[in-house]
Structures are given as C-alpha cells and as structure tokens.
C-alpha cells in the first residue's frame, strides 16, 4: 500500500475510538508520529497490507500440557501437548508464557478484558454485588481496525465471526461477545460475531448488485437518518448522546460502502447450515466453513481486521469429540485431576486453530501468503478454568506480520504484564505503538524478542 492522503474524519474517529474519552493511556504524540508533515500515512515501505486478527478461546488450558519446556527459538512440545497441533506451522507461531493480568481480578471478567483490550473490565451499574460486565476499552481488533481505517478505508472496518454457539447470558457482554468498542458510561458497545456460516456468507458474498440510482437513494436515506440522529443528540443527556455516536458511526460505515465499490471477490458456494448431529454441535465443520470464509474475505480485501470467537469466555460449549458430556465451564469445575478431558479439549481446539492457520498459509497474497501478512493474537481469559487463575496466561502470536514478526520463538516472562503481548501483536500488524494499555494494563515495552530484527 502506498502512502495515501489521510481522511480527516476517519483519523478523528481513530483517535476518539482509541481514547474513548478515557484516561489517556496512549498519548496523542504517538499518533502524530504515524503521520508525516503532509498529513499522509506513515510511510513504512509496506507494499502489502498487513492484517490483524484476534482469535479467542474460552476457559483456559491445561497448563502442564501447554507450555513448551524450553524458551527461545525453535520451540517444541511432546506429541500429547495441545501445541503439537501447531508444530507444522511453528515457523509462523510464537508462544508467549508467564504473563499476568494486572487489573483487579475477578473470575473470567478481568481476564477477558485484560487479554482482549489491555485494560480492566467495567462493571455495569454498581448497584448489586452480582457482576455484569463489559469491556471498558476497545478490544485490540478495534484498535487495529481504527488504525487501518485511518490509513485508507476498507469496505468493512472489521469482521467478526464465531465458531461455537454457546453464549453466556447472565454476566454481561464479556460472556457473549469478543469484539468491543469500549464503554464510557456503562453502555454496551459491541460488534456481535456471526456464528452462522450461511449468514456470514450471505452478508459478505451474496449481495445483488444495486443500481447507481438505488445506491444514491439509499445514501440519501442514510444521510437523512444521520441528520436526525445529530438533531436528536442535542436534546439528550451525555450518556445517550454517546450511544448515538455509535449509531452514527455504524450508518457511515454502510454509506462508505455505497460510495466505494467493493473489490472483486470470487463468490464462494454457500456453506449452508450445520445442524447438530445426534445433539452434537458440528464444531470442526463450522470452524472449517468460517475459516474458509474469513480467509477469502481477508484475501479479497473486504477488511484488514478481524476477530474469531472460537468459544466464549466461560463457555459452555460441549466438546463431545473428546468424550465430554457437560459444557466446558462446568467440566472445568468438576473434572478431577489429571483433567484429561480438558487437556484433550484444548488439544482439539488447537487443531481447529491449525486449520485456520493452514488456510491462511495456503491462500496466496501478493508475493507470499496471507499468514505472511498477518499478525494474529490468540488468547484465553484464564490460565486454568478450575482455579480461575490469571497468571502464566496462555498466549500465541501467529503470522509474520509482513516481515515484522519473527515466529517460532517461545518467550517467557514470569509475572510480566499481559498487555505486552497485545502491544507486540498490534505492532506486528504495523501499528507504530510505543506504549499501550490502560490503567494497570499500561505498558511501554513490547516483546522485542518476538519482533524481526
């Protein structure tokens, strides 16, 4: 991508979105650094756009069969470890271990927000002790998305997909969604993940071509609605004003697609629905369908930032293929040591991640493949589900980040700040960050060992 003229509104959006009216943990000067004196994008010589991804799986791992025994380059693990599934791709995969959640801890909630947003969770309505939370700060996929949009608009600012069906309903958006826009005053501001491969296909690839006149008419309607929202905002309190800002942003995103024709994407076939077979969720089949669609969407330039919610924080998905009969969360709290089913479930999950990485690796992208030009952060909200522990967090950084990431390295820092991994992943996608994170999650030191020299 050559340096392009910055679109002022989207750059403002980036700043507003990232800072969110919040404690300014990421200072303005960094962003000014992205730009040269002419207000053009930071010229980094990048020829091919780097993609950023967040791939999340819930409920932690089984630590004794997770962490590679040695640190440094060329990590390896015994065959019964979960990460053995990724050994064929280890050139593209770095393992991060030892890092901790630094914000005040709370089962699931604090881990989810720390590993996805680099900040604490926000308890909604401090009236009852029961905790219902959302993310106080934007998840990293949105940080990357805002940055990419500030360089040059993509048809979709970001895309969100899910694999397993289970959603928590009692504890707020942290247990239902992955991609968050942050919350300034307890509003819930999420980017819901599409869980149906058929619906995802329909949304992205199955649109009839509108005539220019009809597109103009649709744009006029959206303009009118934006005008109505702005007028209405003047009569509302600060909280509702803020909620309507997101409505405005969402409408402008549709409008921008009407104005900028979407590039050529080869229409895939409809993956269809995946009904349960004998009451077993077809997880591998859904993962395959979603991975294929996401790889295609990235390949044909529909977006540069994505998230895949493989399973939710505190997920109750049933991993029947490893012999589980109860949801994973309950299984974690009841399965006795040595936690064989959890161990097998995580190993299965890594085989599903392996499919996605394989798909990216086998999708040509200019001079290389999609995995060459991606930085994908893989994380989970706990270390192990049965203790809700949030030290020694399991994390992976996948992809070569357009040459920015080294790959095939095991980095360990006992008790280090979890945000270091997020910052490194964002830098891997080209964000010129010198600091990142919020409140206790604020850091200034990326993991340079994982960056290409």
């Amino acid at each position, binding site marked *: 991508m050559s340096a392009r003229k910055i679109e002022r509104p989207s750059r403002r959006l980036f700043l507003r979105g990232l800072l969110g009216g919040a404690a300014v943990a990421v200072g303005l000067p960094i962003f000014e650094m992205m730009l040269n004196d002419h207000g053009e994008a930071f010229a980094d010589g990048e020829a091919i756009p780097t993609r950023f991804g967040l791939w999340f799986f819930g409920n932690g791992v089984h630590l004794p069969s997770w962490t590679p025994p040695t640190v440094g380059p060329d990590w390896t693990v015994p065959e019964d470890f979960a990460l053995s599934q990724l050994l064929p791709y280890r050139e593209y995969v770095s393992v991060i271990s030892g890092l901790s959640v630094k914000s005040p*801890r709370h089962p699931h909630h604090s881990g989810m927000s720390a590993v996805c947003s680099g900040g604490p969770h926000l308890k909604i309505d401090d009236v009852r002790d029961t905790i219902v939370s959302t993310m106080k700060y934007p998840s990293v996929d949105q940080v990357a998305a805002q940055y990419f949009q500030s360089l040059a608009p993509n048809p979709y600012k970001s895309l969100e997909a899910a694999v397993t069906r289970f959603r928590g309903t009692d504890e707020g958006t942290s247990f239902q969604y992955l991609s968050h826009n942050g919350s300034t005053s307890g509003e819930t501001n999420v980017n819901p993940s599409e869980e149906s491969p058929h*619906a995802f296909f329909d949304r992205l690839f199955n649109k009839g071509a509108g005539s220019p006149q009809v597109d103009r008419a649709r744009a006029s309607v959206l303009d*009118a609605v934006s005008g109505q929202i702005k007028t209405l905002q003047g009569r509302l309190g600060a909280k509702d004003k803020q909620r*309507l800002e997101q409505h405005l942003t969402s409408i402008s995103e549709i409008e921008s697609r009407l104005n900028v024709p979407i590039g050529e994407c080869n229409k895939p076939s409809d993956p269809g629905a995946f009904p349960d077979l004998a009451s077993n969720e077809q997880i591998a089949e859904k993962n395959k369908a979603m991975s294929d669609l996401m790889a295609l969407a990235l390949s044909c330039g529909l977006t540069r930032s994505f998230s895949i919610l493989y399973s939710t924080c505190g997920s109750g998905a049933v991993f029947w293929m490893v012999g589980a009969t109860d949801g994973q969360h309950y299984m974690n709290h009841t399965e006795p040591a040595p936690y064989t089913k959890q161990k097998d479930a995580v190993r299965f999950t890594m085989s599903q991640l392996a499919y996605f990485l394989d798909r990216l690796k086998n999708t040509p992208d200019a001079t290389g493949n999609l995995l060459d030009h991606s930085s994908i952060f893989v994380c989970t909200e706990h270390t192990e589900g049965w203790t809700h522990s949030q030290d020694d967090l399991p994390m992976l950084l996948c992809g070569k980040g357009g040459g920015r990431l080294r790959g095939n390295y095991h980095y360990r820092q006992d008790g280090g700040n979890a945000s270091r991994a997020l910052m490194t992943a964002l830098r891997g996608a080209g964000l010129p960050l010198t600091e990142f994170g919020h409140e206790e999650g604020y850091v200034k030191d990326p993991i340079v060992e994982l960056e290409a020299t």
Partner: protein
Amino acid sequence: MRQRYALLLCSLVGLASCVGIIGDSGDERAAAAAFAPAEPTLHRLTRPQLQNAWLDLFGHPLAVPGDLPVDDVLYGFSSISASRSTIAPVDAEKYEKATYEVLDQVFADPARRDALVGCPVTAVGEPCVKDFIASFTTRAWRRPASEEEVASLQVLSADVATDLVDAAQGLKFALAAVLLSPHFLFRVEVGEPADAGYRYTSWEMASRLSFLLLDAPPDETLREAARRGELATAEGVRAQASRLLDDPRARVTLTRFFRDFMNIGKLDALDKQPEKFPQLSATLGPSMRVEMERMFENIVFEKEGDFRDMFTTRDTYVNEELARVYGIEGVTGPEWMPVTLPDDGQRAGILTTPGFLALNAHKTQTSPTHRGRFVRLNLFCQDIPPPPPGINTTLPEPEPDKPTTLRQRLDEHRTNAECAGCHERMDPIGFAFEKFDAIGAYREVDENGLPVDSSTEVDGHAVAGPIDMAELVASLPEVGACIARRFYEHAGAHLAGKGDKNSVEELVTDFVASDYRFKDLVLALVTNDGYRYASKPSQEEVKP
C-alpha cells in the same frame, strides 16, 4: 406454615430493607430519602416490539423479517439491555435490509400501497401524499412530527422520485428514512420540567405504557389521550393501563416479563444428555417453558389470585412429553390439559416444575448450587459474590470404592472457609430439590444408587423437603418485595438504586395491600412516581 414463617421475618414496615437495596446502612438511608428518579434513556425496540411496530403501520399480510439484532439480556431483562446497548455496524446493516424487505412487500402491490396512502401515488407533491408522510411519521415516531421533519422527508421523496423517475419509489425511500430513524428504532424519552422535577410527557407515557404492557406502539385511543395531555396525571395513566390490561396482548407481554424473570427463555435450547434421559425430545424444553408460563397466566389472568400461590399451587398443565417427566399416565399427544398434582408431598408450584429444575442443573447432574443461587438472586433479590480468583473450585472426587452423593461432596465447600460464605447461602436451598434429577424427574436414589436426602435448613428454618421449601418461599416477605422490585426494574429498564428506594418501598406496600395481585402491581407501578418521573438528563462529560 406460611404465617409461621412470616412472623419470624421482617415486619411489613421494613419490607424494602429485606430487598437488599444498596443504601441500607443508617447514613445512606438518610441520604437516600430524597426522591431521585433515574435519568431518561433511549430504549431500543426489542425484536417483538419492532416486529409489532411494523405490523401496526402496514397490517397483514406481512412477512416480518426475522434476521434482526439479537435481544441481549442485562441483569435478567432484555429491557435493561435495550436501554444500554448501541447499534453496531452489523446491526445497522440488518435494520436496513429488514426495512427494505418490509417496504418492498407493501410497494410491490400498487393497490395495497395506494390503500395505505389513501390515494394513488402519482406524484409525491400531491397534498394527499404529503399529508400521508406527516401522519405516517407521527404514527411511526409515536409523537407529532414537526413541520420541519415532514418537510425534509418530502424533499427526500421528491429528490429520489426525480432520480429514479418513479413517484412511488420516492415515497418508499422517504418511508425508509422514517423507519430507520432513531425516533422509530428507539423509544425516545426526554421528559419535561414539571411540578416535582422532570416528568415524562403524555406522548412518552403513551409509549411507555403501550410497550410495557403490549410490546407494541400506542393505539389510536392512547394517541388521543396523549394528544389531550391526559397521561401527565396518575389518574389518566391508570385509566389507560386498566384498559390495556384487558387487551389479550397484555397477557402475552406480561408473560414475557415472567419468562425473563424466571430466565426460562433458555429452556428453548435445553441441553441434556440423551443417553441419560430417555424422556428427552426436541420439544421438551419449550414444553417445560410453556408449562411455567401457563401457571403464571392461570394465576394472574384467570384466577386473578395471590401471586405467591405460584409457589404452592398443585394445579398445572401437561402434555404427553411433560407428563412422562412428571410420571403422570394417560396423557397423549401434544395438546395441553389441566391437571392437579397428587397431594403426595412431592411437588407444588413453580419451583418443582421440570422447567425450573432442569434449567438450574447441568447436562447430566443436578446442581443444588445453581438452584439455590437462582432462589437467592432472583426470588430473594440477594447477591452472591463469585468465587474469589485462585481458588480451586473442583469438587473432591469420591474414592472409587466409596461412592458419595453430590450433597456429601458439596459439604466440602461448606467446611472450607473460603467457599462456605457463599455456598452456605446457596446449597442448602438446593438440597431441598435434590429428589429431582437434572430434567426434573422425581427420584429417591441418585446415579450411584445412594438414597437422596432432601431435608435441609435455610436461614434458620428447618425444611423437610421440596414442599416445605416452596411454602417457605411463599411465606417470605422478601419474595413479594423482590417480585415488585424486579418488575420496577424491568419497567423502568434500570436497576433500582438509592434514588429509587422510596418508589420501590411504595410499590411493595401497594403490592402487599392488594394481597399480591399481579395486575394491581402493574397499576401501582405505572402510577408510581419512580415510573412517571425522571431526573433531568445530565450533560456532564461522561467519565468511564
């Protein structure tokens, strides 16, 4: 028995203090005495509300789009989530797509379109078409559209008509701008300065009432009452609410509140292991939900009885698959039939329905913890903090040659000091229901063949089994107070905080005075100051 328990607990005067509202300490109570209702907020229409709003505008036949944003739940209620959520990009896409699906159906048939408009749509500048835009917008936005608003829609329709060389299309896109408007997708409430602070306007009250009771926009009678300003008084509101309560849709809508209150929408995705429970079928979960909803309808709308009878009644409804779980013979087919459960000490009321028992259990095993937690949280309005991080929550595994009951293993939690504080409050309630397995079928022995003990002690009361537990729940003043508070929170779409304390206490007193008649609770709620008044919206910079 009911009276015996009631005497032991809080006196009626102090009812609300049983409810556990923050601010119960002396200092905070004094500070909370001031009436400080919640700020007004935008309420995003829920899926049924949006679908009903389209039907109200266009009538049947209408293939109502179903691919709409999901109604999330916060603190138990989709209404609370609707007052907090934003419209994400993918949501805006869905709204746009659905809106054109609706409009295309109407505009595909010129006769239907012209009947809606009231004249042939030959030119958007026709007075008839202009008037239609104004009246349609007023109805869709549930308040009079201003001249400016109508004028800008007319400009839009004229521009599009010119560009597409089609007057009807010009009108269609103008209507799209009405239906994609925040004034349609949200219930916009701002309030106006009034005697005791900030009061919802008559038009706003019309929508508050109608969506609360019917999940639908105001009808012509309500709109007329709003036009005349009649809904600015409690008497005016009460009169309209009484009328709406007789609408058959009120039954559906208030049953939806009950569904959220008991969290039983989840039964539609009942997930139990088929190998363990041969009674399972794809429709068993929904049947469990329907049974509980019918119990609610029976007591609230048919008997118009004491709400607390929900916990003690032996009258219920079953179809064949549910009868199998109950062990009732002679019921065949999917039709529902009323039954009176035997007086054998096994079951009574909503807490011994298969739906409650199955929902608050795991895929194969029961969960005294979950059953007890539900009762504490949702029926007593008490809080249970989550386990502290870093604690191993795995239950001890029984030694292979010494099988133990789940109850015996849970005792571990209650001997461990770190766990006891909370489990002591949850598990004993759940033990009363241990004779019902993970789908709510009765059992005397557990999966290991060990006898199940359902005697327990709850807050100092000896409880012999499920019937005793049900009677205890029915007798506790906390429970009636909690139901009133939860309805208040659902209706206002926010949790009751300090500023709501007086309003909730008043509502509880009214509920008690009506002998716990739910319809009277509804009337007391809609005339309650906490529902009719708001605080002036704050313009202060929002801080995280």
